[in-house]
């Protein structure tokens, strides 16, 4: 019996204790600063200049929400009147003793709440995409699937109008169900059964990857056809989407970048900006997977689970570092 399983558990425990001690220390320092400056932490955060390019105020605001027992982000959004973010403003001002006369702080706080609201809506939008199943009858879905094919296999056309019969071109069946789909790594003749829990979101991400980084996507497709260590490209793509969705909903690692994109995009294009962010993350994860897969040079596709966990571990670590909640920052930014 090996004890290898014990090590990660131990590591996790020590990390947990360390964090706990850190938060205690931080709370004490924060109280001290509250006392000296006469301002609550929230007021200090929102006193910053919101126009400074990286919206660092919001990052601090998010960290503040994560660390303080009140208010939870969901409670800020749980407003029966259509989740209008600023509705929770008065209670926040009261609770953190922010003078109502301080317009600057109030405006900043409102902006933070708006950003929080945006995040919530964006996550909802993505979630609803994941629950939208691919349907052959849906022309938009079909167009996406065809776009994926054309991006991955340029120059290999389908029959022009699939509904009009048996026309063939380039030896490919009409772009509907058929064995052609396994050429880009679907499991069988019917891709619609492969999107599973990721729904149309999984397909959208694949298309975006294949169109925005075509060389990379195609070289990965080529790699996926390796005689020994082949892997199904599209199905791997759905796995990557599932991980990106996890990062988006559980880990809170993408929030700061999403909000930055939202502010840069002038709000109106908020959803597209957010989509672009998650699609870039998707493409990055794919590239990491490709590197690790080739470096590991596995015996066959059954080695996918451990390699895939390794890729996820690496990506998570990278995001943690980028998010910048290193210990020293937690203690200095109070």
């Amino acid at each position, binding site marked *: 019996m090996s004890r290898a399983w014990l090590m990660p558990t131990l590591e996790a425990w020590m990390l947990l204790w360390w964090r706990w001690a850190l938060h205690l220390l931080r709370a004490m320092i924060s109280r001290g600063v509250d006392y000296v400056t006469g301002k609550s932490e929230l007021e200090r955060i929102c006193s910053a200049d919101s126009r400074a390019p990286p919206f660092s105020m919001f990052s601090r605001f998010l960290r503040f929400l994560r660390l303080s027992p009140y208010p939870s982000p969901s409670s800020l959004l749980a407003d029966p009147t259509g989740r209008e973010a600023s509705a929770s403003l008065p209670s926040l001002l009261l609770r953190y003793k922010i003078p109502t006369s301080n317009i600057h702080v109030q405006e900043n706080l409102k902006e933070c709440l708006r950003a929080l609201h945006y995040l919530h809506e964006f996550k909802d939008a993505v979630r609803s995409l994941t629950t939208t199943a691919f349907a052959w009858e849906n022309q938009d879905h079909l167009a996406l699937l065809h776009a994926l094919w054309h991006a991955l296999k340029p120059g290999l056309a389908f029959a022009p109008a699939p509904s009009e019969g048996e026309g063939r071109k380039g030896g490919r069946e009409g772009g509907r169900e058929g064995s052609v789909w396994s050429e880009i790594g679907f499991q069988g003749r019917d891709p619609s*059964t492969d999107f599973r829990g990721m729904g149309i979101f999984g397909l959208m991400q694949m298309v975006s990857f294949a169109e925005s980084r075509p060389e990379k996507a195609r070289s990965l497709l080529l790699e996926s056809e390796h005689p020994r260590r082949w892997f199904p490209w599209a199905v791997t793509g759905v796995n990557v989407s*599932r991980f990106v969705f996890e990062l988006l909903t559980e880990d809170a690692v993408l929030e700061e970048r999403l909000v930055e994109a939202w502010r840069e995009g002038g709000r109106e294009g908020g959803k597209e900006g957010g989509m672009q962010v998650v699609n870039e993350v998707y493409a990055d994860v794919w590239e990491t997977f490709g590197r690790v897969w080739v470096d590991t040079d596995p015996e066959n596709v059954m080695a996918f689970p451990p390699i895939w966990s390794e890729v996820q571990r690496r990506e998570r670590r990278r995001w943690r570092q980028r998010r910048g909640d290193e210990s020293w920052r937690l203690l200095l930014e109070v």
Partner: protein
Amino acid sequence: MGLLSILKKVKRKEKEMRLLILGLDNAGKTTILKKFNGEETSTIEPTLGFNIKTLEYQGYLLNVWDVGGQQTIRSYWRNYFEATDGLIWVVDSADRRRLEVCRQELHALLQQEKLAGASLLVFANKQDLQGAPSPGEIALTLGLEDEAFAKGRHWTIVGCSAMTGDGLEHGVGWMVRDIASRIFMLN
């Protein structure tokens, strides 16, 4: 360490069972495993490779292997046959077009010597979908009632829905009892 504790250990080891879940892709193998284990089932992706889970059920430790069902992966199934006590074959009842493929794969699988002693549980999954044929019809289509098939094998078919969880407990319960009566008779 006395004799008793050694005996206890041996006994504990004996209470383990190894189950293998197979079936065509999109049959619902992983969803069944997760649902039975009380996990979230809304964001499942196609299984590349396999999942392993150890569950405790009625005092037995079940080592469950759930292997992907994609056609190109099926050739690796045989790497997981060794020491299998029970085979769970999952059928997407609503996928009428592939029931024939499903029948062929199952029959080929049962020719395997290493699986000769394993109990067979067929889950006729997705019974919650409208128009899904009943377990009885599935049994006929898969040729489970053929004499040559049934000869000497412990098997049953159970209708289930991995989405709602209906039937899962019933099927796994049968499997565990059947294996226990075969290999732990001395207890």
